């Protein structure tokens, strides 16, 4: 599976490690993100908290808006397409997007199939809740995996659940004997060669990032300590009262995730974080992390 094209896609994900990728909806926000030290921006028309509030079908962003953002920043620009909507992905590839997020935050276009991502030259990132989902997406060609978390909730609990699940399963797979791997792969619905890779290397074949609910510097530190290699921050920055300061603080806390003094200093003086939602306040059918399989 590690042919040159795939190596190249994973290579860009490697360059984004230890950083913060921020959701932005216009060129001004993109500049704020870059100036705060973001390693990439995710260009989308509405941040997840607003998608949740507005309802309706959420689709790929307008190419005009994506191009405007590409013009003002020198860091990589990512964008989202709907799950299974390979035509949106083709458009994003044509626009020169650096990474496509086949995302549950948008309304799925195909309830059965995800995009066959090996067909594309541009790398993809996909969300997961557990190791089976992660390895299925990698099998389809995703060059980066992120936890789904619960986008737009400002609540870290789902991201923690998903990261702990993936990391726990990686440890479990390493305890299996070779003759148990096929049955394990069958049970989690994952390609057996990828399960074998995890056993041999003790990690996913692609970088493993965190997303969905990060709102504070301490949230960023928590996810890094749980094994995330980079943090995506969506609504957490531009739904807060002080986006520029909060963006910088989350970058610093991600770099120094293992140093509580720095995380404390980064958190000092910040205004209110985004309000956040209890998971019990989000009806099951409205939970974004339940989309996709």
């Amino acid at each position: 599976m590690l042919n040159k094209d795939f190596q190249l896609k994973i290579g860009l994900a490697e360059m984004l490690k230890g950083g913060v990728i921020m959701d932005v909806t216009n060129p001004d926000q993109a500049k704020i993100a870059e100036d705060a030290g973001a390693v990439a921006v995710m260009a989308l028309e509405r941040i997840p908290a607003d998608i949740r509030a507005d309802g309706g079908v959420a689709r790929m962003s307008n190419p005009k808006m994506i191009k405007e953002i590409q013009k003002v920043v020198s860091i990589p620009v990512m964008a989202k397409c709907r799950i299974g909507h390979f035509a949106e992905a083709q458009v994003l590839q044509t626009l020169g997007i650096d990474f496509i997020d086949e995302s549950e935050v948008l309304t799925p276009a195909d309830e059965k199939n995800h995009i066959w991502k090996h067909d594309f030259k541009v790398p993809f990132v996909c969300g997961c809740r557990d190791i089976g989902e992660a390895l299925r997406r990698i099998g389809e060609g995703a060059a980066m995996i992120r936890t789904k978390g619960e986008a737009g909730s400002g609540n870290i609990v789902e991201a923690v659940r998903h990261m702990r699940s993936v990391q726990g399963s990686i440890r479990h797979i390493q305890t299996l004997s070779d003759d148990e791997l096929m049955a394990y792969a069958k049970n989690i619905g994952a390609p057996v060669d990828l399960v074998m890779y995890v056993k041999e290397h003790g990690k996913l074949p692609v970088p493993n990032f965190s997303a969905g609910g990060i709102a504070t510097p301490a949230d960023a530190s928590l996810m890094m300590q749980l094994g995330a290699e980079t943090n995506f921050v969506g609504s957490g920055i531009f739904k807060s009262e002080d986006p520029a300061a909060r963006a910088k603080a989350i970058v610093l806390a991600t770099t120094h995730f293992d140093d509580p003094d720095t995380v404390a200093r980064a958190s000092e003086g910040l205004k209110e974080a985004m309000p956040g939602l209890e998971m019990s306040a989000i009806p099951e059918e409205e939970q974004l992390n339940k989309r996709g399989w």
Partner: protein
Amino acid sequence: MNIGILALQGDYVKHARAVEKLGHTSICLKEADTLQKCDKLIIPGGESTAIIRLIEKLKLRPALLEFAAEHAVMGTCAGLILLSKIPGNLPFPSLGLIDIEVERNAYGRQIDSFIDTVQITLNGQEQDFEGVFIRAPKIKKYAETVEILGYHGTDVVMAQDKNILVCSFHPELTNDLRIHDFFISSVD
């Protein structure tokens, strides 16, 4: 030997693995104090704008310059940009330790990233190496003091000025340790 790797952001773990495979000790560092334990330093690939902001924010510049005055430093991709004298559009001045002029993202966006054979010269021996170029920079100009060690076609992709070694591609993303070995054993 103790090889420090600037671990503010980027693929520093890949460099650490290469150093360890060669039988040396890798030290991923985020603080100036840690530099005192290091014999040489690697500045990894990553996002040059994000790394230079952190260097400023954490006030690491004086310590890095002081270290480079007496020790060898290698930079790959973003590391090359940070070590160059004229780095293109960075938000803060680069470290200016090698007299080259750089164009960031010179090949284009991720879709234009590529893997191709480059010709490098290590200890006088010409050889091929698999060059992994990811949103890579180009060396547009270089001073006479700069020794050219690698080409991709006519593009200069690897260069050295005394104790400073730079390449625009990512040897750390391959399993080939020749460039790391050259840096550790022959660049002083």
